[in-house]
């Protein structure tokens, strides 16, 4: 098992030499960034295939699955340390997102997607 070290931020203040800060690659807010990504490009890339602002899901038979890249990694906002539990929750939230898109579309048919 390999555990990487955390990389200290560059020194911006003399106190950073003794007490460094550590940058966060995610948004620190509980804002769904693991589902939608932490950049506009990531968010857009997850929403290209389906209409009405839906997240991309691949249909295999009657079931929907998270899309995969060429190496088989799931395409979602945050896909490190993947296991069955992550697959389950990320799929659930993507399905819920798309269900809300459908509900909004039905309630406000005049709105654009």
């Amino acid at each position, binding site marked *: 098992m390999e555990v990487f070290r955390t990389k200290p931020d560059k020194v911006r203040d003399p106190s950073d030499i003794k*007490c460094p800060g550590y940058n*966060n690659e995610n948004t620190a807010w509980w804002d769904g960034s693991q589902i939608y990504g932490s950049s506009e490009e990531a968010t857009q890339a997850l929403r290209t295939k389906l209409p009405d602002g839906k997240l991309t899901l691949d249909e295999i038979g009657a079931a929907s699955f998270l899309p995969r890249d060429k190496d088989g990694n799931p395409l979602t906002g945050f896909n490190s340390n993947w296991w069955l539990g992550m697959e389950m929750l990320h799929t659930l939230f993507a399905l819920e997102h798309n269900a809300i898109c459908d509900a909004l579309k039905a309630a406000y048919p005049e709105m654009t997607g």
Partner: protein
Amino acid sequence: MLLKQDDLSISILILLNFSAMAPPNAASNGASNGAHVSNGAKQEPAHDKLLPAFQPSLPERVGIGAFKLLNKVVPWYKLPGLIGAFNLAFLRLELRQFNLHDGYASAEAQGNSESIPLPDDRYLGARHSDGKFNSLEMPLMGCKGLRFGRNFPRHMCPKPTEEELWTPNPRLISDKFMARRDGKFIPATTLNLLAAAWIQFQIHDWFNHVQVGSTAGV
């Protein structure tokens, strides 16, 4: 097997003290991480004192004290819904004051409404993918790429030496808490695998530290 250090340290934290993930603490961290500096002028480098960086107002302090008294008799989760919600809100204020500290020496890193103007009015009500503009006064608060906030003041969190980093050794911790005793499986009685998945899912919403050797740039 590659393991993100953040997941590993969080799972150890959970093992050592599950109450660290209890709702009051979580509510505070999630909603206002890196957010404590209410006034840049107050942030003097008084490294010898433990100064709360965020000061609740007088009515807020009264509320914190009142709920503290009430909680000696009734915990927040046994109060009627709305009152319980207010109780949580005041617990959050207290935690923000004493348990949430900026990762930067000054509040400048969080930006201000002049240096980082709102690019589009839609972000008044919609999510910005980078996590900006949740605070209009400090638009960069908690956004992607900023330093993660701390639960202790910076001057109390010096970079560990190599010796400190390995004391206690992670393997010792693992052996103490995870090893089977007398060859027998120790069942978890308070939580199941779904809780583990849910907590990891939340952590992935929250932070992922830049790593040495990681290719992901910020």
